[in-house]
C-alpha cells in the first residue's frame, strides 16, 4: 500500500529525513518510535503533503501512485488520514459541519452520492459511540476550547467517520490518561481490516499494548535504524534509545 524509498527531506536547509525507506502492506499496523527530533512528525507531515517540508530526493508510492505529486486534499480524498499531534482550532465552524464537508468532499471524489444532513448525523452518532464523545462537542466549533484529551478523541472520531485507507497517527497517545488511551486504541482497532493500513507514530510503547503492531521501526536521526516485531517496542521501553546509538553507529559507518 505504501512504499517509501530513500526519502530525503529538509526544512529551511536542515536535512531532517536522511534516507527513509519503509514498506507497509494492506492489513498491517506499523509503529514508528524514536526519540524527540528524530524526524517522526516530519515523516507524518510529508506523507500528508505539508508544503513547509521540502523533499530533496526519494519517492513515495501510495497504492502504486506517486504520492508526492498529489495536493494534500487529493491525498486525503485518496484515503490518507493524519491524526494531528496538535489539532488545529477553527473558530465559528461547527465540528459537525466541518466533518460533513470533509466526508462529502471525499465521497464526491470517489463518485459516491453526498450524504444529506440526516444520514450524516446518523453516521456520526454511530461513530461517536466508539470514542465516547459527548454529542455537544459536535455542535461546538472545531477543537475550539476542547481539552487536550477531547482534541485527540476528536481526531479519532474524524478518522472513524472518514474511514481512511491509510491512517497515520502522530503521537495521538501523548498527554492522554489511561482511560482516554484505551478509547483511542479502541477507535484504531475498530479500523483494522485487510484493506487498510495504519501507521502509529509514538514516543512510548504504551499505545502498542492496546494496538498490537505487526512491525515496529525505530527512527533515529532521520533514518530507520532498526525494524522488528512488537518485542522491539518492549525492548526500547526497557533500555531506552541509548543502546541503539552504539549499535547503529557501527551499522551506519560500516
Amino acid at each position, binding site marked *: 500500500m505504501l512504499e517509501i524509498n530513500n526519502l530525503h527531506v529538509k526544512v529551511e536547509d536542515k536535512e531532517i529525513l536522511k534516507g527513509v525507506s519503509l514498506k507497509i502492506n494492506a492489513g498491517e499496523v506499523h509503529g514508528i518510535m524514536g526519540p524527540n527530533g528524530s524526524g517522526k512528525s516530519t515523516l507524518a507531515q510529508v506523507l*500528508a*503533503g*505539508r*508544503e*513547509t517540508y*521540502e523533499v530533496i530526493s526519494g519517492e513515495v508510492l501510495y497504492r502504486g501512485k506517486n504520492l508526492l505529486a498529489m*495536493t*494534500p*486534499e487529493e*491525498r*486525503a*480524498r485518496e484515503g490518507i*488520514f*493524519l491524526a*494531528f499531534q496538535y*489539532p*488545529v*482550532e*477553527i*473558530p*465559528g*465552524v*461547527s465540528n459537525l*459541519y*466541518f*466533518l460533513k*464537508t*470533509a*466526508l462529502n*468532499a*471525499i465521497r464526491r*471524489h470517489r463518485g459516491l452520492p453526498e450524504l444529506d444532513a440526516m444520514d450524516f448525523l446518523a453516521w456520526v452518532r454511530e461513530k461517536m459511540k466508539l470514542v465516547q464523545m459527548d454529542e455537544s462537542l459536535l455542535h461546538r*466549533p472545531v477543537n475550539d476550547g476542547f481539552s487536550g484529551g477531547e482534541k485527540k478523541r476528536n481526531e479519532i472520531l*474524524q478518522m472513524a467517520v*472518514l474511514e481512511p485507507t491509510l491512517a497515520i497517527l502522530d503521537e495521538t497517545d501523548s498527554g492522554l490518561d489511561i482511560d482516554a488511551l484505551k478509547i483511542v486504541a479502541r477507535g484504531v482497532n475498530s479500523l483494522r481490516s485487510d484493506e487498510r493500513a495504519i501507521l502509529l507514530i509514538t514516543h512510548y510503547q504504551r499505545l502498542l499494548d492496546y494496538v498490537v503492531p505487526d512491525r515496529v521501526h525505530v527512527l533515529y536521526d532521520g533514518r530507520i535504524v532498526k525494524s522488528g516485531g512488537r518485542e522491539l517496542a518492549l525492548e526500547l521501553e526497557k533500555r531506552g534509545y541509548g543502546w541503539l546509538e552504539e549499535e547503529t553507529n557501527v551499522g551506519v559507518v560500516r
Partner: protein
Amino acid sequence: MATASDKIQRLVDKEYEYGFVTPIEQEVFPCGLNEEIVRMISAKKNEPEWLTEWRLKAYRYWAELERAGAEPRWANVTYPPIDYQAIRYYAAPKQKKRPRSLDEVDPQLRATYEKLGIPLREQEMLAGVAVDAVFDSVSVATTFKEKLAQLGIIFCSFSEAVQEHPELVRKWLGSVVPYTDNFFAALNSAVFSDGSFVYVPKGVRCPMELSTYFRINAAQTGQFERTLIIADEGSYVSYLEGCTAPMRDENQLHAAVVELIALDDATIKYSTIQNWYPGDEEGKGGIYNFVTKRGKCLGRNSKISWTQVETGSAITWKYPSCILIGDNSVGEFYSVAITNNYQQADTGTKMIHIGKNTRSTIISKGISAGHGQNTYRGLVKITRSADYARNYSQCDSLLLGDQCGAHTFPYIDVQNPTAQMEHEATTSKISEDQLFYCQQRGISAEDAVSMIVNGFCREVIRELPMEFAVEAQKLLGISLEGAVG
C-alpha cells in the same frame, strides 16, 4: 514556494460579476450642481413647493460647506478631491410614461434585473419578497404593491410617495437625518432623485420581505437615493437592499440617506448587501459609498436592527445608527465588511441611549485582504437620562495576508452611572495550519478559506433573512449551511 497569504489572496480574488452596462436610451441632466439643477430635479418630479424649498435650503447649506472646504476628512480613508461640478445629478431611462404594470417596463430594463438575479415578474419571484427596483435616478418597478396595500402597507418609490402620501413624507422627511446633519446628507437632501418609501400601519406585521435593488448604470452619474421607513405602533417590517454598478475606470459617487422611524412596540429590521463595483485590482475606479443611515426608536419597546454585508465599493463611509429615545427600546448593528485589493472601509455605528432601560448590541466583523484597509468606528453614548442602559460591543478583525490593515476606533461616552458596558475585540489571521488541517481532511484550500471566513462571520450572517443569506453566501463565497443554525 507560495506563502499561505499568497494562496489566500488568490482565493479571495474573484471577478466582479455585475460590471456590465445596459445600453438604454437615457435622459440625463448636464454635469454640475447649482440651484437651477436642484429646481430641475424637483420639477422633473412634479414636487410640491415645500419640497422644492427644502431641497434648496439643503443645497445652500451644502454649498456653504463646500465653499468652506468642510467635506468630512476624519475618516480613515484617502481619496483625491471630488469635483462636484463634474458629476451628473440626474439620469433616467427614457420611458414615455411611468409604467402601470410590469408588462409596460422596458424589456431592456427587465433583462438587466434578470441578469442581476432580480426577476421583477412577481410569479417568478422568491416567495415572500416584494421588490422596488431603482435604476440610476428613478424607480422602474415595484412589485406586490396591491397585495401589500390590502393590509394598509405603503411600499412605493419615494417619488410616488411624494405625490400620493405627501402628508407622511412631509411629517417625517429629515426628522432623523436633517439636511444639516453632515456634508453628504446635505448633498443628498438637495439632489436626491428616488428611493423607497415604506409605511406600515398600526398593529400590522408585514407578511413579506420588502426590498429595494439599487443599480447604477449611467456614466459620470452620482446616485443619491433616499429611503424612508415608518413603522407605526405595534408593527413589524423587514426590509432589504442590494446594490451593484458597472465596472468603470472613474470613481462614481453614491451618497444615500436612509431614515427609519419605529413607534411604540414597533420593530424594523433593515438588511443591506452592498456590492457596488469595488474598483480593479490596482484600485482604479469603483464607487465612493458615502452614506448616512440612521434609525430613531421613538416609541417605548421599539426596536431597530441593522445588518449589513459590505463587500463592494472602492470606499465605504457609513455608520448605520440608532437613537434610542423610547424607554426599553433596542438597537442592534450586525456588520460584515470586506476590503480586498485597494478597497477602504470606514464603517461602524452610533448607539445613542436616551430612554431608560435601552439596550444596544454591536457585532462588527472586518475582513481585510490584499491592500485593503478596514476600519471599525463606533460611538456608544449613554446620556444622563438613560438609566440602566446596556451595551455590548464586539469587534473582530480577520486578516488574510500581510499587506492589509484592520483598525478599530471605539468611542464610549457614558454620562449615567447605572450604565453597563461591555466591549470585546479580537484580531486574527487565517493560519497555514488551519488551511492544511482542512486540506488534510479532503477540503480544498478554496473551500477551507470560505469555511473559515464563514465561521468568522456567522453571528452576522445568521441575522440576515433567508432570501438574502443566499446572496451573501454567493458574495462571501461562503456556505450558508455552516452559517445558519
